[in-house]
């Protein structure tokens, strides 16, 4: 079980080359609690600036939270010793968006895929080679692809290499950061199917960050919707898609275009833009754009309420 409790991540905007730029604190993530159980897929959706990538970085220990903690099987990651840390890094792996920039062009596939394997656990070279061939086969590549360089593969095949690299340490959790956004449409289905198959075969849990609502619906079992550094709604994936509670979720889902020309449904077109993360609005962060805004939304921040069993949202309407 991977659990984030009250996670906050603030970045200082004062440092660096910032002439004339306002000084302040960017609240990229401002109090987010989520959990991922083994074998499930948590889809995290939201627009740019909602904090989904920051959340992914915290899960990967690439950033330290400003406040809050990350628990792995009940133990806080900031209390980890070296052995815990090594165990965590093997258990939580990642696949990134762009397989053209996430694979080092100077390394052979064997080197790329074996890189997450710890250097010091006494695996022989033959055993490493065998493990690499095994995961390559698992993702639908030939075992002998190991000797080639990334440029010899197409975009879809490169993403398979990235998935193989994530699988090599027998992980339990994989953070998928926009795993198909950079791929051609005819290739997306191949990768989405592969991810689903691997999950069923290996019992993996995914944390899928996506702005592609259709792809998220395909893979996710639970959904978390983020807005301006906060969670606004969570719940079982299909339930959220068929009956979204939070006005932002409603607007976000209604803006996703269905694949059929006659399916012109009622769209909620939002006015305005995502708020400035340095100076988020008081009360509910969505209230300046919300079509169902009420006076108290501007002053009091909504708390999470369980509207239906398993369905939680932060909105004064409920």
């Amino acid at each position, binding site marked *: 079980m991977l659990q984030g409790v009250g996670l906050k991540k603030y970045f200082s905007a004062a440092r660096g080359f910032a002439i004339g730029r306002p000084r302040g604190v960017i609240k990229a993530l401002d109090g987010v609690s989520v959990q991922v159980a083994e074998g499930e897929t948590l889809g995290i959706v939201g627009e740019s600036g909602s904090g989904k990538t920051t959340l992914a970085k915290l899960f990967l220990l690439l950033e330290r939270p400003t406040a809050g903690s990350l628990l792995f099987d009940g133990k806080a990651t900031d209390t980890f010793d070296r052995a815990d840390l090594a165990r965590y890094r093997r258990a939580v792996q990642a696949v990134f968006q762009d397989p053209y920039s996430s694979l080092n062009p100077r390394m052979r596939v064997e080197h790329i895929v074996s890189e997450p394997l710890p250097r010091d656990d006494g695996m022989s070279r033959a055993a490493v080679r065998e493990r690499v061939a095994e995961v390559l086969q698992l993702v639908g590549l030939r075992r002998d692809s190991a000797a080639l360089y990334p440029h010899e593969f197409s975009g879809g095949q490169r993403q398979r290499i990235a998935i193989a690299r994530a699988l090599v340490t027998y992980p339990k959790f994989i953070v998928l950061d926009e795993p198909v956004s950079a791929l051609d449409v005819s290739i997306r289905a191949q990768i989405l199917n592969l991810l689903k198959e691997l999950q069923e075969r290996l019992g993996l849990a995914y944390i899928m960050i996506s702005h592609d609502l259709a792809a998220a619906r395909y893979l996710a079992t639970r959904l978390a919707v983020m807005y301006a550094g906060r969670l606004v709604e969570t719940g079982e994936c299909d339930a959220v898609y068929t009956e979204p509670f939070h006005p932002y979720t409603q607007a976000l889902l209604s803006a996703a275009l269905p694949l059929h020309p006659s399916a012109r449904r009622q769209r909620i077109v939002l006015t305005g*833009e995502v708020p400035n993360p340095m100076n988020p609005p008081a009360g509910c962060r969505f209230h300046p754009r919300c079509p169902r805004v009420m006076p108290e939304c501007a002053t009091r921040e909504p708390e999470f309420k369980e509207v239906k069993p398993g369905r939680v949202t932060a909105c004064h309407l409920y």
Partner: protein
Amino acid sequence: MKNLAVGESPPLLVVEDLQTHFFTRRGVTKAVDGVSFTLRAGETLALVGESGSGKSVTCLSLVRLVPEPAGRIVGGRILLDGEDLLDKSAAEMRRIRGKQIAMVLQDPMTSLNPALTIGTQVSEVVRLHQGLRGPSLRERVLEALSRLRIPGADSRLRHYQHQLSGGMRQRVSSAIAMSCAPRLLIADEPTTSLDVTIQAQYLDLLKEVQAASGVAVILVTHDFGIVAANADRVAVMYAGRIVEIGTTLDVFNHPAHPYTRALLRCLPDVELKHARLVEIGGQPPDLTRLPPGCPFAPRCPERQPRCDTEYPPAVSVKNGHVAHCWVAVGAEAPPR
């Protein structure tokens, strides 16, 4: 949504057998290889396809901005109001670009100049094409910005692109494009860099501007959801050719080409929970080594022996709905 009166006017744009090739050390890349279509005033045609299918090169060819010397338009005709753009001199083309044909590109971050104010960039176009100066120029610029619903246009004039949000930048570059009342607007993936809620705002606005001005739009995209919601007609491209073209309803309801059918089946739909997606096997082809027959044949589930040797002719499925396929579904008469 379909206006029948529009269908009776003569076409604004006729593209016939357009061929744009790139001559590289690796060989000749046939980026666009025999593309034909027509477009009427007020109509939106979506060009949809994967990367390398030739959508963007088709658009660049229409404004004669194919990167030379590697790229050359080697054949075909591009008739705008009956006049062939391929016969125009460079100076004549400069007067057509921006005035008759305008473009909106994918990333306004790179299509707008970071060193010039918004006001300077919008007025440049109006000044060059309409010869306006002073207060009347300023008035036209403000009008162009407010038509794209840019709030506080007056103060925006002094802003630079980095002071605007992504959605606002794309509105500014659209305001530039629409400022001289073009006949044809080419929008090349205009919403790819925008968030979904901002994309919805932008596409609605574009529709509104189009209805008010009667401009014809070529909308390049790889997103079938955008096509379904915005285009009157759609042309599906694969390996430098249009493999199927027809009204959006016809193509989505009765896709005739196996590629279109496979694409529509393999995409996850936000409205449905799929058990498993139907995959298209293989990879898009290498454009320098295209097979002699149909380029989709190696990936096609309905491949016939002749698909490997002969490129299929245009087959009419229904009035205005055409597919290039030996086994097109619903063809009135199978090709010989």
